[in-house]
């Protein structure tokens, strides 16, 4: 076990090394401020992490976490109900299919109209984009459950409650984690779009601001922090999968 964790940590380091080397070579070839040397970026990061970036990080983390949690809390039950009850499916699937491709980015004026320019709007946009990803993944995972698994419960007249907790939830958990990995990456990208108004905090703001100030060192430092944030969340999901899906 311990050994395994070590190997995956090592291979992560190796991956990081490969990326850094490629980046350095690329920086040497291009030789432009737009592609700064990784060493300089890390120096910069080290200098400004405690003083500024950490505050931005906390704001972004907060928004992502709230958005993700709400999407899970609403999306999972909804996806399970859509997948399990054909009647709900007939009602909701068309709604999901019609609403999912609506570009949420273009609905910014409406969101601002309803919720102002504060954190509510930011979280809501993250939520609105991610919930569909979760609902669709969960719905499809429920469709994939083999009929036979329901037999022992249904023959006992189990309530929906029982079926939910004993079958639907554990069966869709692995795919929920896949969906969450994708959603996390999506919500990181969405930050660039939500943190450009009405706030001075957040990594999205920080990076855009650095870009506008043509401060590429800071911009890349922000990108690195954002990537590490994503990596951390990914590793947490991996750990959750190992813990709660150990039956596989």
């Amino acid at each position, binding site marked *: 076990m311990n050994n395994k964790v070590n190997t995956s940590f090592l291979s992560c380091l190796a991956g990081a090394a490969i990326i850094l080397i490629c980046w350095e070579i690329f920086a040497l070839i291009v030789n432009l401020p737009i592609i700064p040397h990784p060493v300089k970026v890390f120096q910069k990061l080290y200098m400004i992490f405690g003083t500024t970036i950490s505050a931005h990080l906390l704001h972004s983390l907060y928004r992502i976490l709230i958005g993700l949690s709400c999407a899970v809390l609403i999306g999972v039950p909804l996806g399970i109900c859509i997948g399990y009850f054909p009647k709900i499916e007939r009602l909701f699937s068309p709604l999901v299919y019609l609403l999912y491709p609506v570009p949420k980015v273009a609905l910014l004026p409406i969101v601002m109209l309803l919720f102002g320019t504060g954190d509510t709007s930011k979280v809501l946009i993250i939520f609105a984009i991610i919930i569909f990803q979760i609902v669709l993944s969960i719905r499809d995972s429920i469709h994939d459950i083999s009929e*036979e698994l329901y037999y*022992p*419960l*249904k023959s006992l*007249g189990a309530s929906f409650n029982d079926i939910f907790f004993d*079958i639907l939830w*554990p069966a869709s958990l692995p795919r929920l984690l896949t969906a969450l990995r994708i959603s996390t990456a999506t919500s990181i990208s969405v930050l660039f779009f939500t943190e450009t108004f009405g706030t001075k905090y957040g990594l999205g703001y920080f990076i855009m601001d650095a870009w506008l100030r043509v401060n590429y060192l800071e911009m890349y430092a922000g990108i690195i922090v954002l990537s590490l944030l994503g990596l951390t969340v990914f590793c947490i999901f991996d750990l959750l999968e190992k813990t709660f*899906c150990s039956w596989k």
Partner: protein
Amino acid sequence: MITISNLSASYHSDTELVPAITDISCSIDTGTTCAVIGPSGSGKSTFLRCIAGLQKNGYSGKITFNGEAVNPSEINIGFMPQRFGLLPWKTVKENIELGCKIKNVPLASRRKTEEILVNELGLQDKLERYPIQLSGGEQQRVGLARVFLLRPDVLLMDEPFSALDVITRESIQKVFFSLWKDASVTTVFVTHFIEEAVFLGQQIIVFSKHPGKILSTIQNPFFGRKDKVQSEEYLKFVYNLRLLLEKELNE
């Protein structure tokens, strides 16, 4: 009493409707056992699923328990499917206790029974495993432990001992027997072994080949009578059942 009248069920296969069982009528008295034998693919599993209220495409005909329509939340139906129906994300222990949990049977009152049962089925050192970590026979025993622990009103078992070696099979047959005697559980089970049907079924239903009809319903005089297995009448009884199946399949 379970009464089944004019039961038919079929499956959608591409465009056509394939009948699985046609016009089955029979009845099983409360507290008695009934063995179902018949050729592979004749609809025995479908028949059991219909009784348990699990047939997805629905069925035509009428199934009643003591005159009333089936309502699985009111009576206790213990159903063990052909593939055991274990939940892969639950440990053996959780799987065994699942039936009681659903039926809100206080597990504390069953602790003793559970322990004995687990020992009798030889699962004592596998309780924390997941189904994927078990051999085929072990999985089957977990499925059996679940329905046995529940002590249901009606017990439906689809080829319950098929993955067990002779000795284990016989010892578990005994476990079933004592459960049945204790709690007089109305039982319907499918088996491929005529001897097993004769040992455990007070009534024996013989299915025709696909699509399943009832070939014959037989009251079994040798139920529970291990002592008679050498007798001529027993051998003749078994031989006649065999002949019935053979004729049906070689038609």
